[in-house]
Each structure stands twice: as C-alpha cells, then as structure tokens.
C-alpha cells in the first residue's frame, strides 16, 4: 500500500490496491479505486456503498479536475477515504480539504506541521462546500 503521508481519519487504512475506474466496474470485490483527471467521478456513484478508498490523481497540480471529482463524491454521500495523490503541494492542501479530501499522498513529502498550518490559512470561508465549515453568509445571518 501507499506509504501514508497525511491522513485525517480514525478508521483503519484500506490495504487493497486501488484499481482504475474502468477495471472497477468489472470487479465486484474491489474496495479501492483510482480516479484519473479524465475520469467521470459520477461513474462511481452507483457503487459508493462498497468503496472504502478513492484515490484522486493529480499528475500536475495545475489540473484542477480532481477538486470537482472530490466534491461530487462527497455531495453524493461518499464517506470513505478520499486521497489526493501525485503533484500535491503545500499551497493546495487547504482547498483540497475544503473539497472533501481527508488524506494526502504527495510526491514530495509534506510535514504534518506544515500541513496543519496550511489548513489554518483561512480563518473563515465564503462558500459552503462539503467540509462542514459554515460560510461567512451563514455566520452573518446565524
């Protein structure tokens, strides 16, 4: 399994290797799947109850499709591990967390301390997303 760098869950990590979205559809026993930028995350929606780990690959940090993939999964109730892998950099962590990622396997290691600082970048947030933080408009209007 992937050496975990940063993980913010209390359950046991999944040991199974992640399979591609294509392969996943044919493997009724697979519990871990890996999304590439061009994959449609919605293809996984019928199977969310049997998935324990979704890896979202960022081949280049500039390719932001994985942020939408993560949110779509969370918006449809996916509660398993959502791991950002690949070209995952310190300055992207806070946005990734806001889009529902709860574990990170960056190509270049990031220390837990640096990550904590990155997550604390924004004292408030303007948008409601899937991370449970109240948007500023919600705080203004209680």
């Amino acid at each position, binding site marked *: 399994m992937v050496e975990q760098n940063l993980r913010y869950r209390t359950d046991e990590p999944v040991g199974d290797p992640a399979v591609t979205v294509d392969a996943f559809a044919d493997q009724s026993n697979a519990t871990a799947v890996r999304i590439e930028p061009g994959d449609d995350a919605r293809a996984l929606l019928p199977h969310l109850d049997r998935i324990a780990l979704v890896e979202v690959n960022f081949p280049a940090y500039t390719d*932001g499709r994985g942020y939408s993939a993560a949110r779509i999964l969370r918006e449809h109730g996916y509660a398993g591990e959502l791991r950002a892998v690949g070209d995952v950099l310190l300055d992207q962590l806070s946005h990734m967390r806001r*889009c529902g990622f709860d574990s990170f396997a960056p190509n270049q290691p990031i220390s837990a301390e640096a990550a904590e600082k990155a997550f604390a970048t924004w004292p*408030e947030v303007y948008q409601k997303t899937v991370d449970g933080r109240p*948007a500023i408009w919600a705080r203004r209007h209680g």
Partner: protein
Amino acid sequence: MYQYDQYDQAMVDARVAEFRDQVERRLAGDITEDQFKPLRLKNGLYLQLHAYMLRVAIPYGTLSSRQMRMLGDIADKYDRGYGHFTTRQNIQYNWIKLQDAPDILADLASVEMHAIQTSGNCIRNTTSDQFAGAAADELVDPRPYAELLRQWSTFHPEFDYLPRKFKIAIIGSETDRAAMKLHDIGIQLVKNDAGEIGCRFYVGGGMGRTPMIAPVIGDFISPLQMVSYAEACLRVYNRYGRRDNKYKARIKILVHEIGADEYRRQVEEEFAHILTLGLEPPAAELERIKGFFEQPGFDSAASDDLDLSDPDFALWVDQNVHAHKQPGYAIATIALKPVGGIPGDASADQIRLMADLARDYSFDELRVTHAQNIVLPHVRKVDLYTVWQKLDEAGLANANLDLISDIIACPGLDYCSLANARSIPVAQKISERFADLGRQKELGELKLKISGCINACGHHHAGHIGILGVDRKGVENYQLLLGGSEGADTSLGTITGPGFNEDGIVDAIEKATDVYLAQRSEGERFLDTYRRIGMAPFKEAIYAKEPANG
C-alpha cells in the same frame, strides 16, 4: 459603497499573511520559481520584461476616495510615481520589487483592497457597468450582485485551477457599457412582465485569438439562485474544458465545440443537483449587501441648469458628461487619454486629485471604466464647472470621451512579456495625428482599440477600428480591423488586408476616416457607415496608391 465587516477584513488579512510567507519561502529558495509562479499570479504579481508588475483588484470598478488616494500613494512609494488603469477596471503598477509586494498588499488591505485572483487560471475580478447606480437608463443596480459574486468567487476551493482564466461581467442596463457578451460569463439583470428581476446568463464569450460572442445559456435565473447557477456553469467547465492546449482552454471553446444546447443541458443537470445542496447565500445576505448601495443623499433641490458660457467647458460637457438618474446631477468621465499620452496612465498626483474631487463633489465615489478612464458618478450640475477647472489644471480635462483618441491599448511590448509589438507608440501617434478636437468631433463616436498580440488584451476585435500588432520576421507589423463593437450590438471586427508598419497604420486609419466622412449619411457613426457600405470602399481607399508595405 460596500464596506468590509470583520469577516471580509479577516480574509484579506489572511491573504497578506499567506503571501508574505510564500514570498519568504521563495526568497529563501524553499520553493522553485515554477512552484511560486501560480502563487504569485493569484496575487496579481506577474514577471514582465523589466520588472514585476502588480495588478490590484478594483471590484466592479468601484473605489472610495480613501482607496483612490492609497493607489496614488502606492505609485509614489513602490513604483515610479504612476499607475496604469486597465481594461479589467483594475490598476497595474509596472515597476514592483518582489520583496515589496507583501507590504503593498498590507497597505491595500488597510483600505479594504487586495490583488486576489487578478491573475491565474481562476475566477478573476468581476467587472460591471461604470455608471451603475447612476445611469438614467438603469433597470437594476448590478453592484450588489457583483459583490455577491465577488465573495462567492474569492478563494473558491473548487475553481482555483481551472483550464484557463475566467472573467465575469454583470450589468443592469439595456445599454451594455461593460462588453458583457465578450466575457466567459456575462450576466444581464433583466425584468419580466411581472416586474421580477432575473439574471440572463451569457456564457462562452471572449476575445483572445478566437473571439466569440456569448450565447444565452440561462434566460431568466432567479437572483436567489445566481450563485448556484454560476457554480454549475463553472463545474461543467472545470470538468470538461480542454486542458491539452492553452489556446483552446477558455470556456468559449468548450461551448463552441459541444454547442450551446449541449452545454446548457449539462449546466441544467448540474444546477438541479447543486440546488439540493443549499450553497446559495440567503435573501437576507443580498439585502444586507444592497444596504451598502442605497443611493447617496442627493439634494432634491439641486438645479438642473448648467452654465455653458465657457466654450471649452461646453465641449467637455458635450463629450464627457452623461445623464444621471437624479435631476440636478450628472455623471462625469475623466478621460485618461491626453494627446500623445499613454492610455490609462495617471500620475500619483493626478490619482490623488481625482480622489479629492470624489470626496468633495461625488459622494466619495469613483469608478474605473474598461475603456481605461475614471468616472465621478454623482456630481451636482452646479459643481461641474469647478470640477472641470480643477481637472484642467491637472491636465485631466481631455474632452475626447468615445472619440478617436479615446484609445484602449494594452501595455504591449514596452512592458509585456507576451507581446509581439508595441501598442503605446501607435496609440500616441494616432492621438497626435488626430489631435485637433474639432476634427475628432467631426468624426464622432469612434472606438479605437489596440492589442500588441493575439491575446487581445486591448480588445481590438471589438473596436470600430481595431489594431493588432504582430511580429513579422522580427519586424513589428500592424493589422487593421474594421467593424467591431462591444455594446448591445456586439460584433467582431474584420481584417482589412495586409498589415502596415507603425506610420503606415496611422495613414491607413486616416484614409478609413476619410471614406467615412465622404460616404456617411445623416446621423451615421463610423460603425454605422461601415455596416451599411461594407469593407470594399474602405479597402479600396486604404490600399489604393502605394502598395502595402507589410
């Protein structure tokens, strides 16, 4: 004007702290230039030909006098004593040192300003009608909606790494003063027969190397679902916009390739899903924001008379002053287009003077226009003469708004690392050739726009006369376009033929205006005549005697 509460202030303060940390890590060598580049770009910091350039956001082009004064002070303190107002209603400083950038952001934050998302592949500063809240023809004041969009788009976590940059404009008048249909999203606030307000979403417009006029995607979206609809538009784009070629990555290409109907279908599907998530700010938030845009305390007894006995003042009023919704008041535009000057440039002293005029005569408000001018939106007619005299003393009373010398020009090869040709010297030569105001007024409304490369920052596609600078075998060459427009009658210009050198393009423009003067019918503008008689007579005159030297 909108004023920050503790939440808004905390956000810009956090940004300053974050960027200070990023600059320190870069200067210490902890991150590479490649890794730093997208971080500095999201703070509006570009590396140009000679120095860093900082682009400061002016949300929907609206400023208080205190903010304007700070822009002047920054020009003095960190730059070379001037700033450059842009076609995105922002201001740029061209001579910035990297190590100063965090301090500049801190100065900006002290007056509720920032440089957030003024660059990078994210949602940029939302633009609007520079006459918002003042125009006699206004249906709905777009500023509260623009502020709602500003907050929604600020640090949006899903849309920070889009295929390409993303520009939104919003207007609330029938007259489009914001080139709305040439934006990634253009929103026009409209009213239906029942008097209800709706947002008409135009999606997929843009200039650049493939100019397109945006089709209507959402015809009448409730203002209380505007953010959700925008979210749906962006999500479809983020997922399916092309990322294989940066020149095909704007949303206009996606909408064009899959078609407006298919794009609309996908947006509606996403919109239906998003509406179940409760992402939309409540009506109370829109009402709270609207409270900041109540009309100022106009003097209902203000005289509607205007003494035009000074002929120079009369010329300025005729050209630069527009009707206000409040009797006794007027909208005054300060044209930053002196003969031989650099379009959009203002010195620190001029910026501070404009701030003073706003404080004393315009309810503390200024606007920046996408044509690179400044507006005093609420001036009592009895004060106009005093305002004009003070502008005149500062070299700011140019009476050429919307005339041939009111040129939009990008920074071009004098500053920009993307440019193929210089824009500024061409603008200067044209304004010198047509320096005589009587001649300009004879030519009437004539929007001339210059870009120094195909990225079209100077909006050349939308100029009645457009100029595109290109590089031909190492020599600057200028192509001429005719017939573009950016208003309600948006159209894209057509290239006349072979290009010209710097002097040749000025001659060609003069010949084109001669054709107009000879052929126009009563009341026709240059654009109207072109549309009626077509390209042929212009082409014939422009290329008549000497062969094209391009």
